[in-house]
């Protein structure tokens, strides 16, 4: 077992390391290296927030005579995070990874395959858990007066912490895949993953607003003490169901290991026994869910000669044919469609959610309606369109999405610039939806005058065109065509981030121009803005066209 496991882990590590190196620098592009400090910088506020939150928990918990409460919260939440994301990681890695069809015919036991993949997932989970667990462990270690033995015990507990929740996720997945045909419905699985992400995002937004309104991280606040008291009760109840958190907390609390040694042994033994149990179940059930399921179902509908005659009765221009192709390919790839629609779905939620908490929506509408003729209304409308468009990844991934099929576009007798225009038209369909939603929002607040309608419609569409071309310029410079999973083409594509930065730069220019116009000729703000968008759209279109003609020849996939 050890020999096979070692070989698989070595191969896995090599693949992970090389793809990381190719993505970040090396083979693919040096551009990724520029993003690294930005990404690290992005974590600073999250880390700061976590440290503040756990410090508050620690102080409040200590005041209530329960200082290890902070550990209990962090270890429980850390395990819950592992469990939630774990199911999706496990299914992806165990059942949908490309190497499964290669590993199954080899003389390797199913338990070995599962264990090697499990270790791979676990190493990723440390990164997911770290921002939740480490701040709490460090805060408790510094302020609770623990002995030096705290450090090795904390380290071992941190290393073993993902095991119990991931084993539960693995067992659930192995049984689920054995009894359902989810492996055939990969798209359904991806949509479920996307919806879960969306739900978590919205939930986080809701609770963070609630928290911000209620507490403002004031450890002295009475509300906090009440909240910690309630949470403590909830966690004690949950402790029955997540005993590993209770044992790990007991093992680490001040005075340990002398008092917590038994809990530590219990925690470690359960984690290792769970691992052994998972291998045993995998030996029995893993192949049952993993073998087969690669075949794609046909609709069973046979095309007749009459159907064929009907379906070939119409010819279209190349531009229209290309647009139709873009439309169908995106709509029929659920993870693409989700990614394209999520910003449009999520925005209204983010706007409406805080208002439902205010319970003053009627008053707000009345107040807004009184200002319907303010020149600021269309400007705000266009601002909303710009913000929503900046989150759209349709244009910034339009070349990347072609992936291994890009050779078709390159061999067509159609100018690359025409192909790029077709992609823009496709992006504009989402741009139009974006504008319509914004107009509906303005109508909801009773501020939509005919002039505002015209300004937002024309300005929004012109801005969308400029943004579409700028996104495509980014994607043409550095397309990601080597993806094997559609999610890598959109969700995992740095070009979306680059495109967003590009758009924010553009918004800066627009803001500067409108500020200038505000002081010089306020009446010209909206026509001026639209003119700026039109000029940007024109130049970006020229640049994208020229770049497409050049890059379609240069990109040798």
């Amino acid at each position: 077992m050890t020999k096979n496991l070692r070989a698989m882990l070595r191969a896995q590590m090599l693949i992970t390391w090389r793809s990381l190196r190719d993505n970040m620098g090396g083979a693919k592009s040096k551009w990724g290296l520029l993003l690294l400090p930005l990404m690290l910088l992005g974590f600073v506020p999250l880390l700061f927030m976590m440290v503040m939150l756990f410090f508050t928990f620690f102080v409040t918990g200590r005041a209530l005579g329960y200082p290890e409460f902070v550990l209990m919260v962090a270890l429980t939440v850390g395990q819950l995070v592992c469990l939630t994301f774990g199911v999706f990681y496990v299914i992806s890695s165990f059942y949908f990874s490309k190497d499964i069809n290669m590993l199954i015919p080899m003389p390797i036991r199913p338990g070995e395959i599962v264990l090697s993949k499990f270790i791979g997932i676990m190493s990723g989970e440390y990164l997911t858990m770290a921002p939740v667990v480490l701040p709490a462990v460090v805060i408790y270690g510094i302020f609770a007066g623990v002995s030096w033995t705290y450090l090795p015990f904390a380290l071992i507990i941190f290393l073993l912490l993902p095991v119990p929740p991931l084993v539960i996720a693995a067992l659930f997945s192995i049984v689920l895949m054995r009894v359902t045909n989810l492996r055939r419905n990969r798209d359904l699985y991806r949509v479920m993953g996307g919806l879960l992400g969306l739900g978590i995002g919205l939930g986080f937004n809701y609770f963070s607003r609630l928290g911000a309104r209620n507490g403002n991280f004031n450890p002295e606040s009475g509300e906090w003490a009440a909240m910690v008291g309630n949470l403590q009760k909830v966690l004690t109840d949950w402790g029955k169901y997540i005993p590993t958190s209770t044992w790990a907390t007991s093992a680490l609390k001040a005075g340990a290991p002398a008092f917590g040694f038994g809990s530590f042994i219990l925690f470690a033994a359960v984690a290792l026994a769970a691992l052994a149990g998972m291998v045993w179940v995998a030996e029995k059930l893993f192949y049952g869910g993993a073998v087969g399921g690669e075949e794609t179902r046909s609709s069973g509908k046979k095309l007749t000669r009459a159907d064929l005659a009907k379906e070939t009765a119409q010819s279209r221009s190349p531009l229209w044919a290309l647009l139709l192709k873009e439309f169908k390919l995106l709509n029929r790839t659920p993870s693409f469609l989700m990614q394209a629609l999520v910003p449009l779905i999520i925005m209204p939620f983010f706007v409406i959610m805080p208002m439902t908490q205010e319970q003053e929506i009627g008053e707000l509408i009345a107040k807004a309606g009184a200002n319907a003729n303010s020149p600021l209304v269309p400007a705000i409308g266009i601002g909303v369109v710009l913000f929503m468009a900046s989150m759209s990844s349709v244009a910034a991934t339009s070349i990347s999405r072609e992936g291994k099929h890009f050779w078709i576009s390159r061999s067509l007798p159609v100018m690359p610039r025409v192909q790029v225009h077709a992609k823009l038209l496709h992006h504009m369909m989402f741009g139009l939806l974006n504008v319509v939603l914004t107009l509906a929002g303005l109508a909801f607040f009773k501020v939509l005058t005919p002039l505002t309608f015209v300004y937002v419609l024309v300005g929004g569409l012109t801005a969308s065109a400029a943004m579409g071309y700028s996104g495509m310029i980014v994607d043409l410079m550095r397309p990601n065509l080597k993806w094997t999973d559609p999610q890598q083409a959109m969700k995992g594509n740095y070009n979306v981030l680059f495109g967003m930065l590009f758009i924010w730069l553009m918004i800066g220019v627009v803001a500067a121009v409108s500020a200038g116009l505000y002081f010089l000729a306020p009446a010209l703000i909206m026509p001026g803005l639209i003119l700026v968008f039109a000029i940007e759209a024109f130049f970006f279109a020229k640049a994208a066209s020229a770049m497409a003609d050049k890059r379609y020849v240069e990109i040798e996939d």
Partner: protein
Amino acid sequence: MIEINGVSKSYGGGTKKAVDNLSLTVKPGEIFGFLGPNGAGKTTTLKMIVGLLRPDSGSVRINGYDITTQPLEAKRQMAFVPDTPEVYEKLTGLEYLNFIGDIYSVPVSQRRERIERFAETFELTGALGERISSYSHGMQQKLVLMSALLHNPPVWILDEPMVGLDPRSAHTLKELMAEHTRNGNTLFFSTHVLEVAEKLCDRVAIIKQGRIIACGTVEELRQNQSGGSLEEIFLELTQQ
């Protein structure tokens, strides 16, 4: 006609020469077979002919149009079938054929007639309404062949076209290839099936390490070597 003049292509920043100063001409009415061991430079040459790879030096002309300076005109003259039939899996077979028909502006009546004929020939009529993702490798290969032939181009460039085809479809394809060149058109294809090359080709070229080591009719190659079948000639030449 295909004219390849002094074409070279390197990978890895010029360290690995895939094709080295290759020149040849494929005349109208000719079936030209391109043979060579794995990694000899066959696919690289074919991709340079169709414009998917840029030559480091040299030129390629298709019916007089330079693929680098007149790419659209050159592409309208030809059809390309790659070695792996990868097309948009989310479209149905018919949607893909209609897409190609629209791009090459194939009139509706001709489009319908050709799709019907080729679909029957390749026994794909019933499956054309299905998503391509449900097709087997052979069915995808047939679809790519149909799409390549849909606009009836004068020059066909096929990379390993027999791979994945059942014997009946392979036989049909060979007949189509012969018929195509009988009408004065040009056909350039790569293959590892030496029996097919020997039976079908007017001329063949053998490429090794990016260079053509033999070119001519099978009879001419036989005279230059110690005789025998094309397989024996190939083995002898590529072992040296």
